[in-house]
């Protein structure tokens, strides 16, 4: 479904990602793990074209994404939940969802119902200004906003960051549910233990390079991951 082939990217001439090659197949949940500053966010930003790759190719459902501007990506079926949620703080939670459905206005009411079924909490908070939602609610709202466009592929950037342990649990529960609904998910996480329970496969990114990949079980069992990241 998504093929990233030897992609490199950087900021103002300083490279942050080198020769990244990865693939996401339809129906899969794939994780990208790695330490701070590894380039995980950069990878997602390249996929949704917020930054242009300096080399390499991207394709989605067989069609190249070269030359596709950032604002056309969501129309192709890729929705991106950015790092730190980035809700519009002075819009209400429902208005945020409306922005998510900007390109899919016709199906807004129907999508809203689906999303509220998934996140009943958001329905209670629909008229509340997003800036005053709790951290967990904000993360739900950010994910819900991305789902409003009816994506085929969902990019999640550290959905558990900055949340209390209990809330982290429920967010991963939600991610599992979303995967079960048939969405294809590419998720970036530092909470490796948790994310490996949710995804089918994962890539390990370090210093801008993909250094390892494999199924969730393989990675969980890999000694270097156990040592460096799982603290075993």
């Amino acid at each position, binding site marked *: 479904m998504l093929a990233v082939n030897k992609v490199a990217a950087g900021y103002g001439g300083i490279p942050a990602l080198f020769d990244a090659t990865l693939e996401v197949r339809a129906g899969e949940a794939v994780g990208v793990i790695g330490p701070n500053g590894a380039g995980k966010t950069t990878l997602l930003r390249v996929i*949704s*074209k*917020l930054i242009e790759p300096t080399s390499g190719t991207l394709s989605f459902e067989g069609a190249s994404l070269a030359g596709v*501007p*950032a*604002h*056309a*990506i*969501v*129309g192709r079926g890729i*929705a*991106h939940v*950015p790092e730190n949620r*980035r809700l*519009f*703080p*002075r*819009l209400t939670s429902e*208005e945020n969802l*409306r*922005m*998510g459905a*900007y*390109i899919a*206005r016709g199906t807004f009411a129907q999508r809203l119902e689906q999303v509220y079924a998934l996140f009943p909490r958001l329905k209670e908070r629909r008229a509340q200004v997003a800036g005053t939602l709790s951290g967990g609610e904000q993360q739900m709202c950010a994910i819900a*906003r*991305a789902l409003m*466009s009816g994506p085929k592929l969902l990019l999640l950037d550290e959905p558990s960051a900055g949340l209390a342990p209990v809330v982290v649990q429920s967010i991963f529960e939600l991610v599992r549910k979303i995967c079960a609904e048939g969405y294809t998910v590419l998720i970036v996480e530092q909470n490796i233990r948790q994310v490996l329970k949710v995804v089918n496969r994962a890539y390990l990114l370090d210093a801008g390079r993909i250094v390892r990949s494999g199924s969730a079980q393989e990675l969980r069992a890999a000694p270097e991951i156990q040592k460096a990241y799982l603290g075993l």
Partner: protein
Amino acid sequence: MSEIFDIYLLEAVLNGLLLGGLLALLSLGLNLVFGVIDVVWICYAELIMCGMYAVYYLYVQYHWPLVLAMLAAIALVALLGWILHQFVIRPVLNAEPINQLLVTGGVLFFLQAAATLVFGIEFKNLGVTLPSVRLGEMSFSAARLVAFGAALGGVVGLWLFLSRSYLGTAIRAISQDRAIMPLMGVDPGRIFALTSALGGGLAGLASCLLVLQYDIHPSIGLSFGPITFLICVLGGLGNMLGGFIAAFIFAQFIAVGGFFFAVEWGYVIAFIFFIAMMFWRPRGILGK
């Protein structure tokens, strides 16, 4: 004696209220553009001047029906707003903020001079006189009443648009987080251009109302441009509600000050009030 005095004062206050509506409308487009794009159009009043000339020529020279001439003027100024953004603002969008202010100042020079060149310096008048409306002892110009009504209509219309429509929501959203708008499938450049056209359209609406009350000449922009900026700043740049309140405060200063002294003194008092307020509430009356 005191009775007559009171009724004239009341008349001044009510006229100030009507003027406030007009000033509120004037500040609306400027505030919208600033709130979304973060750029002050110093040439805003000159856009309005263009609209006034458009109404004048279409109505007086080409004998269009007045309403049609006004609609055309609104469309024209909307187009000017769009052009201004695409060709003047966009190239300096990432430059120093002060350059954005200055570049529109260049446009001010250009429009004012071009109007002198093309239309000459003589004053032009639409020749439409609306009757004055009497209310007991007091009288009000119908043009002002119409302007007040249209201004309120413009305000309510804009508010509905911003709060109800997708585009309006996007316009509000983009001022809160420009960088992630593409993730919503929104092209920020397009929203900016549309906002500019909308701001221009509001300037066009203002020009239709001003042309009913004032003569047109190439430097008319200088006579109400400054006050429009000050209203926006006093209300908090980009804060439309604040601008609305500030417009009515200013209008009262002008009307009541003009009642006791000369009109210019009314302005002087309003401007000094503005400067004093800036030191008390630098981010506007509703700012934090």
